């Protein structure tokens, strides 16, 4: 992993800062002078994982590019809650055009910077899973194919939350959404459908692809920093739990992101030019139930008429990830 594990400082490098560490050993988010790219007063729900993830990513990108970053945003929660006319929460140049064209607009912004010989100004495109996996997918694939100099960040909360929790191509199997109700013999979203965009991006053999969660800030910051050190098309996929759509308590956002990774359901890895170069090992493995049970979108799998066979299929998915990405090894780095 890109992150150096600091040991024996009470909390190692698991926490954001820690007074016992020198400032350069602390996360960007520990800095009282951090950019706060997404500032107070935004209208995201209580405990919003996406608001958190976006600030983590953009603050780190700003530091890496000496504050010279232009952000392009797809339509989605992040856009709606941050910019109700005439207010904005963004403290950097920020553009919004359409739901599906963020990657294309970002390509244009990057082209404009090239024409102006401003290679110091970096371009960041961001969107939710709807704007990335479904609606903006063609533009995104084109951006990858042309290797445009853009870091595209997908904040994945696994459904269209802003419009009322409809299924997206990133919604996991068995999850209940407004359009995949928990009824019938296969309740919730179907198995065997949907897209794994990190692996699709990998197949484009672009300079850098990575996944991350809001639970591992150090890892996320390191990936953004590394991505910003590269040129060309880069893709970062961040799991951001959504208390509203997942039916979880607002205080559980980070814990759920952690459990998604620790159960193996969300593999955290990075890759360069089509080759996986690192995975984040599971530190304390948990059965998928521990991740699923606190979420009401999976309530139909438990309770009075439980569906253990569905839970077993989800566990099999986790086990496959563990096997496929090598998420567990004998020497777990604690």
């Amino acid at each position: 992993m890109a992150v150096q594990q600091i040991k024996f400082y009470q909390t190692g490098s698991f926490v954001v800062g820690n007074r016992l560490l020198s400032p350069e050993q602390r996360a960007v988010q520990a800095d009282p002078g951090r950019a706060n790219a997404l500032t107070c007063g935004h209208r995201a729900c209580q405990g919003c994982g996406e608001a958190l993830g976006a600030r983590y990513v953009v603050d780190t990108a700003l530091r890496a590019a000496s504050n010279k970053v232009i952000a392009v945003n797809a339509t989605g929660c992040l856009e709606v809650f941050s910019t109700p006319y005439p207010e904005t929460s963004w403290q950097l140049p920020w553009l919004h055009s359409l739901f599906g064209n963020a990657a294309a607009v970002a390509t244009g912004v990057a082209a404009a910077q090239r024409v102006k010989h401003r290679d110091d100004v970096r371009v960041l495109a961001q969107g939710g899973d709807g704007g990335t996996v479904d609606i903006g997918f063609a533009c995104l694939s084109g951006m990858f194919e042309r290797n445009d100099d853009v870091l595209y960040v997908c904040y994945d909360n696994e459904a269209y939350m802003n419009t009322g929790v409809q299924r997206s191509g990133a919604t996991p199997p068995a999850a209940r959404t407004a359009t995949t109700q928990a009824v019938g013999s296969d309740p919730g979203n179907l198995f065997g459908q949907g897209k794994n965009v990190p692996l699709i991006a990998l197949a484009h053999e672009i300079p850098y692809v990575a996944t991350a969660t809001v639970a591992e800030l150090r890892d996320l910051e390191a990936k953004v920093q590394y991505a910003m050190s590269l040129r060309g098309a880069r893709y970062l996929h961040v799991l951001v739990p959504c208390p509203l759509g997942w039916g979880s308590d607002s205080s559980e956002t980070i814990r759920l992101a952690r459990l998604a990774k620790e159960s193996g359901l969300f593999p955290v890895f990075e890759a360069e030019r089509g080759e996986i170069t690192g995975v984040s090992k599971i530190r304390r493995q948990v059965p998928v139930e521990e991740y699923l049970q606190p979420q009401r979108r999976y309530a139909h799998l438990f309770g009075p008429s439980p569906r253990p066979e569905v839970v077993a299929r989800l566990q099999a998915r986790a086990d496959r990830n563990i096997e496929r990405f090598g998420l567990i090894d004998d020497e777990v780095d604690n």
Partner: protein
Amino acid sequence: MEKPFAITLDVGSSRANKTGAWRTQRPVYTDLLPPCSDACPAGEQVQQWLYHAEEGGYERAWRQIMSDNPFPAIMGRVCYRPCETACNRGRLDEAVGINSVERFLGDEAIRQGWTVPVEAASSGRHVLVVGAGPAGLAAAYHLRLLGHRVTVRDSGSKPGGMMRYGIPVYRLPRDVLDAEIQRIVDMGVTLELGTTVRDAAEAMAADGFDAVFLAVGAHIGQRTYIPAGDSARIMDAVSVLRGMEDEDLPLLGRRVAVYGGGNTALDVARTAKRLGATDPIVVYRRSRERMPAHDFEVAEAIEEGVRMNWLSTVAHADAGTITVERMELDESGYPQPTGEFDELGADALVLAIGQVSDLSVVDGVPGVHVADAVVEVDRTMMTGHQGIFAGGDMVPAERTVTTAVGHGKLAARNIDAWLRHRRYAEPDRAELADYDRLNPWYFSDAPKQHRPRLDAARRASTFDEVVSGLDESTALFEARRCMSCGNCFECDNCYGVCPDNAIRKLGPGQRYEIDYDYCKGCNLCVAECPAGAISVLPERS
């Protein structure tokens, strides 16, 4: 300003939108009582001094200990560590080695010659302390800090009480004991050794003392009737241990049996081993689980070659041999005789079945009540006689050095209040910081640094200290294993995880502040605080 087409409003920041109005619950920073501090009989603020030690502030850490306990180096050797038993880290991997760190700090203070200044203005009052053991010396220390004149009288030829005459040298080297006592004497405490106070009230009146603190300890070994032949050699544990301070060491013989199951019994058996006994054996009527001695003492004794004869009583003693009867526990856990007997070879039988106090100092003092061979005191440690206080082993309590030190502090603060016609109010105790409040995910796995122990073969023949100290880097590591239960240690987690940037970082040592204009009350900071130092309150409606 000219506005673009179809735009009628000026652009503004979302900061105008005070999202704090959404809140139904309010996170607040708290300082809870960590289990270590809760468990300390001397009232040490353990988490607080570990906090200083964590950043290398050893002198600050030591001064924090000294505000409650004048004997860090002694504590680091003889305390039975209720703090470590209570430590929440024990549920994660192993308890923090609090005692090792305390010893490191105590030794560092002796090396560096750190002292505690008396800053209080002189009160003009003079207090007599009877007994120079842990309770008496702790009281003298705290009374000096509060501005009083103090005279300590002790019948022994050297100060320290049971710390000198009861604790073997291999657990507490005398140079350490002397250094910590000397530091108290140097603060201006008058020490009158070889002086026996016969009557507390009379001494108070005759020499013009304004108050008296009695801490005479419990130095008389309890006896029990054991049928014995004329030439049987029966001794009591206190005399044996006290004899170790004399020039002529006690003659125990080659085979020594010790009767009793407390720490004193083990101290005697281990001492006997060092004096040359080949086969010291401890005879105790109940099982190991029910032994009052501490586990590590039992373990160390067994390692050194002390044999344990659990579930047996001494039925008869003769020259060179004792007869023990095997016992078995009944349903309620009491030992019952079985009628089966064994013979053990023993040149001496040492009784270690408890100690009692010599309470002649309060004989005939009006108002003082004695029940079950101990002196009754009220919450302020005062006896029934105005101005005469008592503590340590002579009052009803657990008989440990640390408890005695706690008594000395409590008595000193109450004596001070009484002399000033005030009432001493003990500080309120905060809510206990349970393990369930913590977020253990964030703590790195870090096993405890065990203090190296002397090779068993070597210690069985010498009185060298058995447990040696940690060096600086391991002590620092150990201090940093503290999980800071219920108290902020500035890890920046709350500042990092707030999706609304509603937490302000106030700078080193200043902690954080919540901006309730924007805090939506999601409680992510509460859930992700490693130390459980943020509580949730319902929002005022």
